[in-house]
């Protein structure tokens, strides 16, 4: 019997201006023991389906059509009270961020025992026994002692295991996992997905796995549903949908995912829905003040770079405690190359970027740019006008109270490179070249989407005609289709404008596509440095091998 049957579900969010249809007649079924993947880009309505099933739609959103039935019984018409008893008991949920879904003031045991007693009506001792058993089932080592610890004593991955244990407390029939591994590192992600897979089999629970990551879908799910702007465009067994996609959108979506196995010259763009906007690199290159590249010479020589952060402040210097974020890292960046730095969160890769950008002071070692030492130099203005940076979060990297033209003009105006009419001309030209049009200059950042904002960031970075560009996770906040566009732009910049780049990312396939050479960071130490090809084909260091083995692979997937 079908466990969960969603048919013709329509969810609407009425607003002042218009009614927004977040989910438009979606159909979806989940069988016991099955993992049903729900994939799509942001705004596709995948999380809304999860919330609708849970009865947790944010106001003013509500179900305007269709039915949701659980084991043949309709649950979409239930009132709040009936829904509340259902929620957690028969359907439970795993959220994205394990940090916020546990109460930091209660021990893990308290939270588990309370939930178990609420749902199963057991007494304290039995509930505790069950809680320990659950922790064992989610593979937490030494559950008898761990049960009395607080959430902050668990690592991110362990915390997500606790959240899964919480979801299992009431022996639910259906679990909705909304981006359960997005906040985790790849190595942890692989373990959590493995756990979800095992548990679904073992307990015959139906799982709806909501994700934006094609790799997760390929690794974990049995059936997949692809959504685009509120509509289901394709559904079927995972191998079939990924291997022989029938819908145009699925095809272009899959081809936009960076491939880990071979390096391609450019990313195929997601053409479905007319999202493509052109980037006119040739026009930009014509007016560019190029510096000749001497590929044998390094642009940057970085030696023994060290950064310590104050962990415990104290009046007396000897009492202060530091943690070393970057420990004696040395590497060269040759002129015109893209040097990648890859590592998990907390490995110190962003700290390196910020030290090179001059945003953080250096606690040891030297940075030499074009033969001149930067560390300790008095006047950095000439150095600063030659480097620029593209940031991770397009929503916070543009000042919300400044107009786009002022944002783009600021670096060039500050360095005194251009002013007045010439500056305005440069700004208009840049906006035009990145595909937004000069009229965009009169608007404010909130009027643009994430991908458009990242283009504005790029325009700002190019305004001073820099020689060196630091990209700190430039696409990790973007959808794959937008990521493909932005990465193509960055490739164009490097090829046509002779830019040298430092490219920071946690995403191995992206690194493979973008970089000439790569350094692998672990706990502040650069453990391996190699050409991209040799690193991916023959990793030397054990940590690199481990990272590569956890990389989600799109095996048997149609090549774009």
């Amino acid at each position, binding site marked *: 019997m079908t466990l969960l049957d969603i048919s013709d579900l329509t969810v609407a969010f009425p607003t002042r201006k218009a009614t927004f249809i977040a989910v438009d007649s979606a159909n979806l079924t989940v069988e016991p023991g099955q993992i049903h993947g729900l994939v799509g880009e942001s705004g596709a309505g995948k999380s809304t389906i999860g919330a609708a099933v849970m009865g947790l739609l944010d106001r003013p959103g509500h179900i305007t059509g269709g039915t949701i039935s659980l084991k043949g019984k309709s649950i979409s018409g239930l009132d709040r009270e009936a829904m509340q008893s259902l929620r957690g008991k028969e359907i439970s949920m795993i959220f994205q961020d394990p940090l916020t879904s546990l109460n930091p003031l209660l021990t893990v045991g308290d939270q588990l025992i309370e939930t178990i007693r609420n749902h199963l009506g057991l007494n304290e001792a039995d509930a505790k026994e069950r809680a320990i058993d659950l922790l064992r089932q989610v593979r937490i080592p030494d559950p008898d002692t761990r049960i009395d610890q607080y959430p902050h004593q668990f690592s991110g991955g362990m915390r997500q295991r606790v959240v899964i244990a919480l979801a299992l407390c009431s022996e639910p029939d259906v679990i909705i996992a909304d981006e359960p591994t997005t906040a985790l590192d790849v190595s942890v992600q692989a373990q959590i997905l493995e756990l979800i897979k095992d548990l679904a089999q073992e307990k015959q629970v139906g799982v709806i796995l909501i994700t934006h990551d094609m790799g997760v879908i390929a690794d974990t799910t049995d059936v997949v549903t692809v959504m685009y702007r509120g509509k289901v465009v394709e559904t079927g067994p995972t191998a079939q949908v990924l291997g022989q996609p029938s819908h145009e959108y699925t095809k272009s979506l899959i081809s936009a995912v960076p491939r880990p196995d071979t390096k391609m010259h450019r990313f195929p763009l997601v053409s479905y829905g007319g999202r493509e906007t052109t980037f006119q690199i040739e026009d930009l290159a014509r007016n560019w003040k190029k510096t000749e590249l001497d590929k044998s010479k390094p642009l940057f020589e970085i030696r023994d770079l060290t950064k310590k952060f104050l962990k415990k402040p104290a009046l007396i210097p000897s009492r202060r405690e530091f943690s070393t974020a970057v420990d004696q890292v040395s590497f060269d960046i040759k002129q015109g190359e893209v040097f990648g730095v890859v590592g998990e969160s907390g490995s110190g890769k962003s700290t390196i970027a910020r030290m090179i950008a001059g945003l953080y002071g250096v606690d040891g070692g030297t940075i030499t740019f074009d033969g001149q030492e930067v560390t300790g130099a008095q006047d950095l203005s000439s150095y600063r006008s030659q480097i620029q940076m593209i940031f991770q979060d397009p929503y916070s990297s543009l*000042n919300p109270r400044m107009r786009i033209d002022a944002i783009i003009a600021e*670096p060039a105006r500050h360095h005194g490179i251009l002013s007045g009419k010439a500056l305005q001309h440069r700004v208009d030209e840049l906006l035009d070249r990145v595909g937004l049009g000069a009229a965009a200059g009169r608007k404010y950042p909130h009027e643009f989407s994430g991908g458009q904002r990242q283009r504005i960031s790029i325009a700002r970075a190019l305004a001073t005609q820099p020689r060196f560009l630091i990209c700190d996770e430039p696409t990790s906040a973007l959808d794959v289709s937008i990521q493909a566009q932005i990465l193509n732009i960055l490739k164009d910049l490097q090829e046509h404008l002779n830019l040298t780049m430092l490219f920071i990312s946690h995403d191995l396939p992206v690194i493979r596509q973008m970089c000439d050479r790569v350094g692998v960071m672990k706990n502040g130490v650069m453990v391996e440095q190699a050409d991209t090809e040799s690193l991916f084909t023959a990793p030397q260091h054990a940590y690199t091998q481990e990272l590569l083995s956890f990389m989600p692979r799109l095996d048997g997937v149609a090549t774009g």
Partner: protein
Amino acid sequence: MTDISQNKPQSRIAAFWDSDLAYAFRHSPIAMVSFLTVFLLVFSALCAPLIAPFNPYDPASLDLMNGFTPPMTSNDFTGAEFMLGTDDQGRDVLSTILYGMRISLFVGFSAVMFAMILGISLGLIAGYIGGWTETIIMRIADVQLTFPSILVAMLIFGIAKGVTPIEYRDQMAIWVLIIAIGLSDWVQFARVVRGATLVEKNREYVLAAQLIGRSSPVIMLRHILPNVLSPVLVIATISLALAIIAEATLSFLGVGAPPTQPSLGTLIRIGQGFLFSGEWWILFFPSCTLLALALSVNLLGDWLRDALNPKLR
């Protein structure tokens, strides 16, 4: 190009009218009523010389025989009639209220401006620079918060009175009042701005400005300040009500506006002497005006806080 520049102001008004804030305003009767009240009171205070029937500061217009005339009745001796009655010296209460409100509003606005400038600057510096600077500024703020603000204001007023020569005292009184109320009120601005600055300074747009080598004052003023202003607007509105009340309290206690420049508080102090002898109007009307002013400004501030914070809706 020309027609764009012509259309611009119009579209901006239209855009404002269409904005969520304006929409929330149009759908909140409380906000509209209090805005109307504040507008009427401020307008009549500003135009006092034009609309007040008498100039209460002009001794020539005073007739002692008109003293203690009840509202809307003709005087026993002169037959003159006053809408809100007269006080002991025959001054028209309506006119004294209009002129008194000018002083109250002037002191309130200026004190809030002063507190705002001081609080925003110190808050920005504390939040952005951090370290010892922050510790010192915020500890001073903490210490000041342990005193009731009216006490701080009285203390400052007392010290100022002690050091100013006697012949300037009446002239200086208003300015001393502004500084006293402002100094007792900067802490909450500093706290809110510091908190917001701590959030904003870690945003990447600030890093982008640091990257090109912008100096700290430029980053604070051009980048961070515009982004921390909306909570400040709310506090400023509520502070205005509090400042008006603080001014009235100080004047009522006799340490505020001098009798030569009576504010609402001074009028209330004068009026309370006659409350038990039956001349209720001398106290009643200034008090009502103060109440209406402070209440509607306060309600407006409350509404603004809710409207700017969608989570509370």
